């Protein structure tokens, strides 16, 4: 047992405690702590990742001194570590990028609270990523929900509170279903640790009894997580929640929170139910269909949208659809594509949100397209970044979006029945993406526009610009040297089994 193996536990713990510490610290210090924690966790996950790549096998970490099946466990594989690292990067960048906006969006007294919530969120995400225990997962899902809700409503305007309420309701429904499914599962198997559940599920399948309850519980858990990760048609809460909360919140929520649930779902599929068993249920077909629908309708409502941030929010509905389509294919390749898309979408979407804020603040704070005309000239960095993000979304080569499209399509071709549908919908949704993103891009470069708005140069917003730069670089790294990452994902998934 190397020392490194403690890192997952440490990272969860420090982010949890630093949260509580933040509440007593002065605002500046809180900010610093927050950043440091995120960075530290990131570093730790990085080291862990390297370590795991070295050993090439996952390990299980006891919480307390009870072995399975009684004790609570943490499990770390390449995928977990990679996810953690990635989440940290995105979160750090989003925080840094949205920091300057925080002050005029959130009232002074609430700043500490903000950092607390962020830390809580991080810890819960990490827990979701690492945990090996279903009930722990549930608990952290709830914590995640609460902190996310806090992040939404931290900006005290009617819209956000209402959005928060809606978000709460939906996710409570989701977690309720999840919990119920979990209970049934526990009832069937008598275990809470993923690995144990898996064994007994396998036995159940062999024995051929309790099929219906098993399916029911799986279905309940899937639906629960689908609701929480805003799969169409459960996306009603999403645009408001992402559209009106503070920019960092929006970025983090859209790129991390929903992804956390999805990652949990992946873990469940692989580590609880077992990939093959899951694929033999009809559930994947349902996921597939709703994925496709999401891809189409998300984009359609994005096209109708007249508010840049809501548009981006809707586009994440479509992107989530992509991911679930990948699940629905029920092949290793499809799963790899989905996981990669989780990464690329997280990178791109947060980039878009951060860039969008850069654009809106040179347009008198308005997010209506009409005011954004020519914003690309007034804030060059944001303009370029937004363009890059859009291109990635549309799937232009060199950007991450292209790779995920490539992977999805390649995966789709291997599935007889679903190939044509998947390919055609891919094509159509690309067209739709092109329509609304390019509309925006052209809009922001359309004319020099209303010059009454101030121009922002590099000097005025160093941090913001640099963050954007990092995002773009990240995006391009994902897009160009995707091969190692894909390999890593494959290894990680292999470790799950």
């Amino acid at each position: 047992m190397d020392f490194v193996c403690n890192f997952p536990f440490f990272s969860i713990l420090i982010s949890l405690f630093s949260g509580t510490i933040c509440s007593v610290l002065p605002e500046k210090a809180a900010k610093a702590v927050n950043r440091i924690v995120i960075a530290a966790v990131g570093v730790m996950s990085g080291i862990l990742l390297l370590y795991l790549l070295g050993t090439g096998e996952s390990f299980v970490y006891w919480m307390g001194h009870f072995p399975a099946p009684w004790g609570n466990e943490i499990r770390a594989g390449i995928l977990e570590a990679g996810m953690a690292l990635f989440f940290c990067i995105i979160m750090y960048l989003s925080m840094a990028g949205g920091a300057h906006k925080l002050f005029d969006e959130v009232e002074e007294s609430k700043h500490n609270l903000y950092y607390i919530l962020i830390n809580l969120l991080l810890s819960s995400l990490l827990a979701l990523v690492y945990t090996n225990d279903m009930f722990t997962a549930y608990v952290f899902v709830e914590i995640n929900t609460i902190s996310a809700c806090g992040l939404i409503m931290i900006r005290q305007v009617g819209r956000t509170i209402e959005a928060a309420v809606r978000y709460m309701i939906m996710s409570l429904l989701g977690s309720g279903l999840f919990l119920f499914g979990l209970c049934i599962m526990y009832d069937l198997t008598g275990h809470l640790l993923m690995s144990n559940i898996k064994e007994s599920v396998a036995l159940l399948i062999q024995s051929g009894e309790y099929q219906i309850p098993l399916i029911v519980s799986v279905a309940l858990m899937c639906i629960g997580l689908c609701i929480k990760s805003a799969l169409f048609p459960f996306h009603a809460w999403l645009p408001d929640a992402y559209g009106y909360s503070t920019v960092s919140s929006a970025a983090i929520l859209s790129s991390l929170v929903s992804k956390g649930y999805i990652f949990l779902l992946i873990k469940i599929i692989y580590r609880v139910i077992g990939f093959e068993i899951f694929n033999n249920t009809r559930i994947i077909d349902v996921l597939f269909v709703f994925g496709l629908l999401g891809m189409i309708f998300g984009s359609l409502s994005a096209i109708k949208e007249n508010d840049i941030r809501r548009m981006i929010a809707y586009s994440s509905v479509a992107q989530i659809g992509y991911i679930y389509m990948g699940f629905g294919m029920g092949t290793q390749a499809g799963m790899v594509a989905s996981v990669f898309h989780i990464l690329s979408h997280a990178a791109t979407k947060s980039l878009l949100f951060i860039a969008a804020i850069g654009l809106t603040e040179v347009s008198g704070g308005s997010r209506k397209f009409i005011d954004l005309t020519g914003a690309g000239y007034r804030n060059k960095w944001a303009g370029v970044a937004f363009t890059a993000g859009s291109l990635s979304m549309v799937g232009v080569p060199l950007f991450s979006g292209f790779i995920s499209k490539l992977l999805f399509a390649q995966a789709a071709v291997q599935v007889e029945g679903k190939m044509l549908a998947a390919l055609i919908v891919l094509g159509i949704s690309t067209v739709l993406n092109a329509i609304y993103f390019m509309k925006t891009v052209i809009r922001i470069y359309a004319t020099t526009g209303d010059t009454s708005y101030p121009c922002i140069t590099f000097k005025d917003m160093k941090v913001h610009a640099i963050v954007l730069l990092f995002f773009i670089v990240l995006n391009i790294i994902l897009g160009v040297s995707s091969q190692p990452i894909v390999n890593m994902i494959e290894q990680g998934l292999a470790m799950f089994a």
Partner: protein
Amino acid sequence: MGPNLWINYGEAVAAILFCIGFTNLLLQTNLIKKIIGLNIMDSAIYLFLAEKGYIAGRTAPIVTDGITSVEAYINPIPSGLVLTGIVVSVSVSALMLSLTIRLYIRYHSLDLDEIAAQLKKEGR
């Protein structure tokens, strides 16, 4: 199926309660009622767990007058889960209620649709 239903009537009841709570949470427009629905839903689940954990003729897993044999007590884990779950649901309901209060202060209404309508009027 039928006989099973009669044997585990407790679970059946739990499931029905869960559905009631679920629909309330989903369909009620009044926030308070929603929250009530939420609580019904959660408690239904706890009931379910309790039912599962209960073994006829045994007592709660609290060591009384020195009997330490496992046979004397019911399975403790579900109870533990229920306790955890209760904690969670309490905190969640608290959060929901606080949100409700804020909304009520702003809009003098508990009806979500009405609030949404007012928000549209604000148009921000």
